[in-house]
């Protein structure tokens, strides 16, 4: 079917190489050709914006973290859907019900998260 293995991935290698070349090339040429003006305003993150206040490494609400954790957990769930979809026709009804059980358990977790108001950002202190 396919040609040899490294050959099959050559387009991806080409794309990666091109991306590195373009990104690196822009950095290098701007470093070589660009004029360097350095002062306090020029070094600020947004030269023409509001003056930054405080430190960018401030602490964030734990809600962000919770969203990230839930994202990964549901991400893992979706990853298992892919091999299922690949052989779905072979598995037939049996595969359907095994996936249904799997999804039911995950969805129980989803409803738990929903009911506990974790996804509710507007209400305070629930």
């Amino acid at each position, binding site marked *: 079917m396919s040609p040899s293995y490294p050959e099959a991935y050559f387009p991806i290698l080409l794309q990666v190489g091109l991306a590195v070349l373009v990104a690196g090339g822009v950095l290098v040429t701007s470093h070589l050709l660009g004029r360097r003006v350095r002062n306090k305003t020029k070094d600020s993150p947004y030269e023409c914006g509001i003056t930054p206040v405080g430190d960018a490494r401030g602490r964030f609400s734990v809600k962000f973290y919770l969203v990230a954790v839930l994202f990964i957990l549901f991400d893992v769930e979706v990853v298992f859907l892919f091999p299922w979809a690949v052989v779905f026709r072979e598995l037939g009804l049996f595969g359907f019900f095994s996936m249904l059980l799997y999804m039911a358990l995950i969805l129980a977790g989803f409803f738990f998260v929903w009911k506990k108001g974790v996804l509710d950002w507007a209400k305070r*202190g629930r």
Partner: protein
Amino acid sequence: MLDTALFYIFAALTLGGGVLTITRRSAVHSAIWLITSLLGVAGLYLLQRAEFLAGVQVILYVGGIMVLFLFVIMLVNLDQAAKEKRFSGQKWIALACVAAVALQALWFVSKGAGRFTLGQPSIAGENLGNSEHVSRVLFSQYLLPFELASILLLVAIIGAVVMAKKRI
């Protein structure tokens, strides 16, 4: 020949990224180098003809877990840690541990290499991709672990909510 060259490139990427991860002072830079290391591992998977695993590595580790790491960096106050001296006190213990692991690996390579067999790449014979093989085995032989994985995920979801919420 090409495979060997690619292996060394990906291995260098993985190890170099790992070393840079633990030596950078800024936590965000460490996270970026960890991405390099994880991408190298994905390349190694691809060399083993494990396309599905390589895809999962990129999607879950590079895409998901790194987001989590960056959120953790945002959440905790690292100003104090950045000023402290690193690699302090435990240098000799760490060296002893590394030496022990190196000896183990050396012994394993010299003595035990013949005792275990590497799994054969799954593309041999049939005109099937790696993903099909993974799915077939997953939904026949390993169906119970697959269903148990959903319970594990459920526990993780509940655990995350319980730990992060003040009042359930």
